[in-house]
């Protein structure tokens, strides 16, 4: 989503709760992220606006906790456990996702198809 600096960002988001899986010593979530304010936004294949420096989901391990929770490839992560992900560096995002003390991460993600779904549903039931 493109944004205007200084103006609040509005987006239609979906809440996804992922339970971390214990693999030996590590707690893994089962997906990979790309992006960040210190990265090159032009290389992002998932973003519509090529100047968007947000955190995007680039890969999902099949059968992992993320896939089970409903995360899809190409989703943009807006919040992780209440922490904002739209203006963070890549490393900060990784840290927020891999806190050892947390078992659960609650993400707010957004994707293009969400907008269409909401519009469709509103169109079908206009009174609601």
């Amino acid at each position, binding site marked *: 989503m493109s944004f205007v600096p200084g103006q609040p960002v509005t987006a239609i988001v979906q809440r996804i709760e992922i339970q971390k899986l214990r693999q030996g010593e590590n707690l893994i979530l089962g997906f990979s992220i790309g992006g960040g304010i210190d990265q*090159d936004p032009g290389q992002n294949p998932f973003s519509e606006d090529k100047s968007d420096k947000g955190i995007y989901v680039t890969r999902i391990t099949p059968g992992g906790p993320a896939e089970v929770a409903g995360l899809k490839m190409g989703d943009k992560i807006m919040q992780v456990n209440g922490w904002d992900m739209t203006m963070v560096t890549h490393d900060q995002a990784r840290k927020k996702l891999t806190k050892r003390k947390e078992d659960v991460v609650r993400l707010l993600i957004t994707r293009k198809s969400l907008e269409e779904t909401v519009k469709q549903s509103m169109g079908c039931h206009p009174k609601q």
Partner: protein
Amino acid sequence: MDNESQYSGYSYKSSHSRSSRKHRDRRDRHRSKSRDSSSRGDKSVTIQTPGEPLLDAESTRGDDRDDNWGETTTVVTGTSEHSISNEDLTRLTKDLEESTPLECKRFIGPALGGCLSFFALVTPLAFLILPQVLWRDALEPCGTPCEGLYVSLAFKLLVLLISSWALFLRPPRATLPRFFVFRCLLMVLVFLFVASYWLFYGVRVLEPRERDYRGIVEYAASLVDALLFIQYLALVLLEVRHLQPAFCLKVVRSTDGASKFYNVGHLSIQRAAAWVLDRYYSDFSVYNPAVVNLPKSILSKKMTGFKVYSLDENPTNNSTGQSRAMIAAAARRRDNSHNEYYYEEAEMERRIRKRKARLVVAVEEAFTHIKRLHEDEVASSPKHPREVMDPREAAQAIFAPMARAMQKYLRTTRQQAFHSMESILTHLQFCITHNMTPKAFLERYLTPGPTMQYQQQNGRGRQWTLVSEEPVTSGLRQGLVFSLRRSDFSLVVTVTPLPFLRLGEEFIDPKSHKFVMRLQSETSV
């Protein structure tokens, strides 16, 4: 050389006027030359000799005046020893006519300035000499200080003389329509100054016959000091003030849109006009009246449309509606003229390129016929005697094979008015003398050069009219527009001030140039 033949011809052909005789002589000579050159060349060439290029209205006017003058004078016969030829006479009369009306007007300003400065320079010497001459015995002798003053006076006068010669004693290059304000101001200043000094001198020194000679010498020295300062003022006002650029002038020629930008300092409008004209003669390509915007064949098509005549006595609404529709259709059909213009341009360009190629090849071949003879190559075999020619003959020898191609090219580019055969031959001779290649010979004809290249050295000068809404002695300002008009075109000059520049500073540490690779990392969580 040809004096006798000319006179014998004139005595029984006296009914013709002198100038036509002159033209006929020149034409005969040219025709004989062309016949010689064509016999040497392979092709038969018919060459038109217009005589003099008709660049200026002024030159044709001169010829008319020449005719009238020739009718009313007596015949000069060749019997006396001190005889001048026909052509000398006409040349003299032309010079006379050219110089006398201009002499007074052009030189009156500098002459006045010269008198004034001479007067000012002589004054200190007069101050010193007059007491010595008039009442020498009564003067008190003054020793070393006076001699010091004499030496300094002499050197200051020498410096004044030399700098006046270097700076101000130059022939003026333009006559301006109104007074040149600064120069007038300075002349008035000098005059008042010297006059007041003379006044005081007369009252205080000459009348009471002052005996203190040292005082007189100091008085003269102070005059010379003040003259030096006035000269400094003149230098600053006339020469230095307008050097720092302050305005940008855009000069556009009205006929073909050729434009240039110039940076100029603080000048009055008339001085700026003279400055612009100086640059015009060497920067702008020559004005060619034969090159018009659009050929008539294309423009006239736009004019023809449908002409609607109503033949009925009572025209109904229907017929007017129909005629309007027809006119609209005709208007839509007119839009093809740009198409024709495009194709016409392309065709013209192709034609020019073809002729140019032929010309270049012809000139290159012609130049291979000639070789420079070196000093040590004089000895040649008696069986093949080489004809040694001077540059003029060499030029005539190789001109014939290229003449036709040259003429066709000039006619296609519509430059034939600027180059007569005589001028081409002269240029060829010049190029041969200076070892130029064919390309160097051709550069004069392939691109239209600046107007300076086509000027004849006339003593009369060029007449320009300065058209301006403001008085021409006012200074340049933003948004001022004036134009310089000639008989068939004009230069429109627009004045804009140069922008004020705010220069800031930024220091870059040479060690601060560091780079990183662009990241696109992917982390799995």
